[in-house]
């Protein structure tokens, strides 16, 4: 059935692509076709592994959840990889989880070629995801205003504001194109509401 609608209504927007994948498009396609790993995006920084485990284990036995971390702070930065034992379970998760809210946010999931050590870190200049570097809007679940809202931040870092900023639902290569790693120069804008800041501290304390 799905093919009926798939054919004349191709999904809008790009699918998730790991731009640092070293291999030909054919190799990438082959890896994706056999993958049991999902890339999950648009998470709140405060979403815990337990919540993700609860959300994704509904579809089948989860092998592991790898939280995406800020390269500098080593705190969650809004994405993760979910690996299943069986491909069917991962497929069901993709079909259903898109459009579902986790921690009050509509999350997005797509196939990933498979996790490799190092990929858990954000590739933005600030250490987090690129999308938060280029975002100028306010997003309480992702640390308040994005880096692009900080005056002069982009110019000082030679940042190119590619792609539409401030689209929390957009599925883009959150880890960004290959760039030199830069040290965080500007502090993350932390004007999130007080309760969210408290929650962050609470979670770091492992009090759950």
């Amino acid at each position, binding site marked *: 059935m799905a093919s009926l609608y798939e054919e004349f209504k191709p999904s809008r927007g790009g699918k998730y692509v790991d731009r640092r994948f070293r291999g030909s498009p054919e190799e990438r396609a082959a890896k994706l076709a056999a993958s049991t790993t999902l890339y999950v995006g648009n998470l709140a920084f405060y979403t815990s592994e337990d919540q993700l485990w609860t959300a994704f284990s*509904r579809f089948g036995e989860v092998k592991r959840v790898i939280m995406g971390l800020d390269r500098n702070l080593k705190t969650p930065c809004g994405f993760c990889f979910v690996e299943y034992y069986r491909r069917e379970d991962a497929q069901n998760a993709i079909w*259903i989880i898109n459009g579902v809210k*986790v921690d009050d946010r509509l999350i997005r999931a797509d196939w990933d070629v498979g996790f490799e050590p190092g990929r858990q870190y954000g590739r933005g200049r600030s250490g987090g995801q690129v999308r938060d570097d280029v975002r100028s809007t306010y997003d309480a679940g992702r640390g308040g205003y994005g880096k692009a809202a900080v005056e002069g931040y982009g110019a000082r870092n030679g940042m190119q504001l590619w792609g539409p900023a401030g689209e929390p639902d957009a599925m883009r290569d959150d880890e960004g194109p290959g760039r030199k790693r830069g040290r965080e120069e500007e502090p993350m804008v932390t004007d999130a509401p007080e309760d969210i800041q408290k929650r962050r501290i609470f979670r770091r304390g492992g009090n759950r």
Partner: protein
Amino acid sequence: MEISGGRGDDDRMRLEVTSMLARVGDDAEGRSSVEEQLEYVSGRLVDDASRYGGTAQYWEVVRRALILCGNDLAHKVGMYSTVVALIAGASEEGKMTAERVANGTSGLMVTAIRDGQLNKALQALKFLCELCNVWVVSWEWLMETLRSLLEAAVADRRPFQLHARSQMLVDLIASALPWGARGLKRGDTDEFDSFVAELLGCLDQQLEDESAWSSGLLPSGGTLFAFRPRILRAALDDLAARGWNSGAMPRWDDGSLSSRLESGPELTLRTVQIPSHSKVSRYSAPSYVCTLSTEKPEGSGENDRKRKGPIEQLLLRDTATNILDNFLQKHLEGAIKMLSLPIPMDANQEVVEATFTEMCALPSAYQGQVFYGAIFMDLCRVPNSRLSIRLLKAVQLVYDKLGYFDPEVFDRLSDWLAFHLSNFSYNWNWATWAACGTAQARDRIPYKRIFCRDVLDHVCRLSYRDKIIGIVPDKLHSLIPPEVESLPARSTDEDELKVMELISGSDRKAPPELKARLMGIYGDDQYEQILRGLFAAILRAVQAILSHFDAMMERYISVVNELIALTGPEKATRVIMDELWRLWPALPLRCVTYVDKLCTYQVLNPLDVINYLLSIDGLSKEELIDKMETSSVWELMRLLISRQKSRVQSAKTEASNAARFAASATEAEADMASEKLEEAKLGVETVLEATRKMIWNTVGGLNVVHTTLSEGVEDSMEEAENGAEEKKIPVWEWRVLGFCKEVIRKNTSVVEANIGDFDEFLQSGPVDVKFRETIQPLKTLALSDLTDPVM
């Protein structure tokens, strides 16, 4: 069912044809009426033949697209049959295509019957019925097909035995008859009447089996679920009383198109050979239908409801079910389709009922549980949808009848509601549940209390404790899992801290050194103490982050395994489970996940875990009741048994792969292949034996718990006494008996293969009357051919 094609032009042709057909009728309120759209589409299909050179390839694409749409978009089946009729009347190629569409559809029906897929077979038969209505297929052929289906159903019935295939076939005919009656009535009326009488007789016979089916497959809910043959019988009686014509089936062949359709070819197709066997292991049609209309509907929908008789309700429910089955990959599209059925009636009530029916179907739902959650979420999110009002009423009805539900269905409902609320910012009238948090709730409304507690537990899993505390009224705080810090401290906390220093932080020790240091703390041969201390420290060290448990276990699994071997597996399981049990009230999800992981690491044996959970040793009656009322205990047992089923499946897959390899092996590989095959066969036997042990151990354990807790308790009344608000059967008993049923109905093939164990079990020890009464009818169920869906 894919439309295969080449590249370039072929792909474009396929895309155009399929897209055009799939869209037909979708915007009927837009520029043109459905009739105009049907005329346009059929005209285009005929005209485009010349554009594509009138090739056989083009008509093949049209045939495939029509079969695909007619079967998979069954809510528009009447439209596709009309299109087929129009192209059949337009050209010779069109007529040939129509014949091939009908033959292809009957082929699909046969395949679906063979695969035991009732809903797929029903879609195909409905399409054939509609093709008869528009004069494409002759009424004689349709009658002959229905007769042969009925004969197969009657032949399959054996005395004193439930027969799932017979039920499936009768269900298929009775569900399709309303669609085909119009066409069949064109022919011999006497023959039609005698056929209907015979079918009703079969339905009546099935009603006699109702109690046997109910023993294990009734989702219950008091009066909320009705046996499907009863629903079908009422619907057919209603339809007959109205002269076999219902408003729930919109027609496009009455008006301007009727004269063109009446000159249809009335084809007599190939005789349908009903397969002699069906894989009814895949039979997952709901035998019980959720009927939420026990209370008078209120509000603006009342008039609609009054107009709808049993036949309209059946047709709307079936159409919604059809969409549910076909829109797994596009659940939002499915929800939109359900809310805009091309039927001149408000179908919200039936959509809710159909979704509940599917979600609560036993032994398993057709799709994963989370799919129905996503559908309900979409149904409420679609702009201008008024379904949420119906859904709220449905939840209220369900909430009032909670004690009557099968425990498995109860758990599905609490899980679903938590998921649903998590998608709507936990907006709920929590105040109406406040009574569940009072001290009297355990006695007065035990089922509501447990449901409320489970929903709160699940919403905490999906969110976090502090948030939920801030949302729900103070009275309900007692039902929310406590914080870990509030749990009673262990007496050996000091040693535990020392061990924690050894296993975590930058100064952590490697396994050999760790073992030596542990012996230094607890004593050289105090293996049980060492294991307890180590495990407690591990649990404390990984408290912050779930995946740290994996890292910790990977690091120290050698030490843990060594200590288990020295302690003895059973004692070790008790030690580990004791430590987990301490954390259980605060971290139920974590504990369930840890046990699951430990079983994967083969640190724990699932059988021992089940024995621990059902153990009565050292527990007072109150403690045992508390344990039996803890929903996550049942969640864990359900998980362990399902994992065992997966192991069986994997072993069987491995064996079939080995068999394939052996069949194609060269002479040089022959020895290795046969060795591999033997090994795989042995693997299947081993895992099946482990499953058998697990099932009977569980049933035995449940019996021991039941016997222990029943002692000194007077027979409880099943129904609510005057003044009491809920059913009076104790929660622990409802859980124990319910899980016993669940284990057997989900593993009927294993139970069937070892049916002697049933009698042995009943004779071997003291079995409580109620337990015996529960288990005896399940033997009938196991002996019927309704086997579980996986094995």
